[in-house]
């Protein structure tokens, strides 16, 4: 986007500020629930903790979602799906990694097939530590994310575009993944 002009820059900043305000109050998430952490989601959404009061709802498809919630343990096989989902989401998009498995492999740390550092493959905006984190923790994380968005610090999606080649390199190392032409285009277009 042509941001050379200062005025335009200003207007863009203002608009994006407004957009961030809207965005933080309406976090639609898609949760990737292959891990055991998914069991914590129903309490978050239902009457006990009621995440909807913050405008948080769960969405069925990544196209509609803003937040990708990865609920725990990832394997090589599921990572491919996570990346697919992440790439199908429409920016601005945020990733919340959930549980220790996403941080360091958790109790499966010594398995050959475990993804130990999610950070290496997609940009994670926020981690929730614990095995399991409680619903309060999740809501806490969302509130943290809202704050980050408001401050303009939740820029994982920009990072992904910026260091696309590096992420892809890391992904390819795990599975023989080839960079698709169109994603290159996406990167070029959005920078």
């Amino acid at each position, binding site marked *: 986007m042509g941001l050379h002009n200062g005025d335009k820059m200003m207007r863009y900043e203002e608009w994006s500020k407004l957009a961030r305000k809207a965005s933080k109050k309406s976090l639609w998430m898609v949760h990737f629930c292959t891990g055991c952490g998914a069991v914590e989601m129903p309490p978050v959404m239902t009457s006990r903790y009621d995440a909807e009061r913050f405008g948080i709802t769960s969405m069925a498809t*990544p196209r509609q979602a803003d937040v990708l919630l990865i609920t725990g343990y990832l394997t090589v096989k599921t990572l491919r799906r996570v990346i697919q989902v992440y790439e199908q989401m429409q920016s601005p998009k945020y990733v919340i990694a959930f549980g220790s498995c996403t941080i360091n492999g958790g109790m499966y740390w010594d398995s050959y097939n475990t993804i130990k550092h999610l950070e290496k493959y997609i940009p994670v905006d926020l981690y929730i530590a614990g095995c399991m984190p409680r619903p309060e923790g999740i809501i806490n994380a969302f509130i943290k994310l809202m704050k980050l968005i408001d401050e303009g610090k939740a820029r994982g999606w920009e990072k992904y575009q910026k260091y696309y080649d590096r992420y892809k390199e890391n992904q390819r190392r795990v599975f023989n993944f080839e960079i698709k032409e169109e994603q290159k285009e996406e990167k070029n277009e959005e920078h």
Partner: protein
Amino acid sequence: MLDIIFAELIVAAIITFFVREKLAAIIAFFMSLLPLLALLDWASNYGFAIINLGIESHMKIYLAGVTLHLAITPLSWFFALMILPLFPVIMLFSYSFFKENDGFFALMLLSLLATFGILLSRDMLSLFLFWEMMSWSSFLLVYRSKDRNAIMSYLIFSVFAAFAILFGIIILWHENSSLLLSDILNISGKPGFIAIASLITGFAVKAVIMPLHAWAPFVYSKCDESFVAFLAGGLSKLGYYGMFLFLFSLKGVDILQSYMTNVSWNYLLAVFGALSAFFATLIAILQDDLRKLLAYSSIGQLGYIAIGFGIGTPLAITGALFQAFNHAFFKAILFLTAGIVAYRTGKWKISELGGLAYKMPFTFMAALFAIFALAAIPITSGFAAKWLIYEAAIQQKYVFIAPIMLIAGVGAFLYSFRILYGVFLGENRHDNVEEAPKSMIAALFILVMPLMIFVVFPGYMLDLMKPALQAAGMESIAHTKFAIETSLAKYNSIAVLITLMVAMIPAFIIYKARKHRVTSFEDNYLAGEPYELHKPSMHAANNFYKPLKKVVLPYLEPGATHYFEKIYNGIKCASNAVRRVYTGYVQDYAIYVVLFLLFIVGWLIWI
């Protein structure tokens, strides 16, 4: 002039029979413009104020010792405008459709001749002659399909229709001792009733009204689409032409009513129309063969015309004629589209097609427009027609027909979407498909034009049919260029269109405000599954309306075809019984001879 046109058409038919297909198409194209031009010339001689003028001019042709009376009337003028344009368009379409010349163009020219003759004939013999000529020329076109059901059902039903019409005609002839249409006035009571009823039955076969529709799905689904476009678009209208002629122009309604005054015979026609609209729509929804779907949809849409004729008020008839006009064009487009699809992919099963919209955008646009017209979306002229019929039904308080008709209209959305989604949208399954040849696209867009014109100016259509209605002694309904007004409500086309355009502005602003990126088909949400991995089938077109099918099918199961098959089997049994008479032993035959002799002697001497 007419005999020259007839002669030229016959000569052209003979020539096109022998030349190569491209040349044949060109000759056929120009020759098929001829009748239309003749009519226009005629119209211009009377000034184009033909709209306000009833023309009646006679022309005689001698054939096999019989005089044929031909003339152009307001009614035939209107129907000619509806049907005759289809021919050049179909010829244009067929320019690149056929790989070899196997008589298509010649037969189409003969059909054209017959159609022209039907529209112009002013006595019942010539009407019947041309009617049958059309029957056999179209039968020969059906014959090219080489499909057993199509050939048999078309011929049998055609002949049934012919006999019914013939029956009516000879009764009228016997009662009036004249074959001229203008003489059918002083007839009433039972013979008149039987005559008109059997004529209507005969025309109903070609007009595909429900119990007599059984041939249509076979024929429509097995023949060349370029021919079926004429069959569905033009030929069915000729059935309604006949109905209009005998019911309204010649006051057949009064003849019917004079027999039994306490029964509304019209209502019966309307009920049959409504039932065919309703059931055909339901059946169409469940079809998988594109051409069969279109066939049933044709039956359904033609049902509306029957309803209009059945209701019989000027309002309803205006609607019916309008619907007939629209149907001629949008169904021709749809069948030609099916032809293009088959031409490019060689497939008709909707579940095997998909994703053609981006490959052939112009075809898609034409088809989309035709489907809008079919579904009576108010941005095409299809709406005004159905609206008029609905109004008429409400005006007459036909509480049985109106809801059935309306729900059939809703059902039209379902099969419309089936075509759109199954054929044009969804998964892209054909990599090597190109846009259709230019001649085909041109043909489609020529057909789209009237639908576009008459949505903006529905009043013009009403002007066009006004002379025909006046000739039948009916008042045209109140209208301006843009608006039609009935006693119940008003429909203003321009208000709808302008508001739609204005309402497009916010939508367009939203559309333009944010950039979008066009992604490939493979980039689709599959619960995270990358498409390249398994390449799953992405087309949900197989058994599309399965839940509906589960509910509805048990009620549709013993269809009309079933009963016709029963009749067929009954004749089979009779045939087997009769064949038993021929035992094959000459001594039995000798006994027959002796018995016959005794029988005759007995009859003559003692009885």
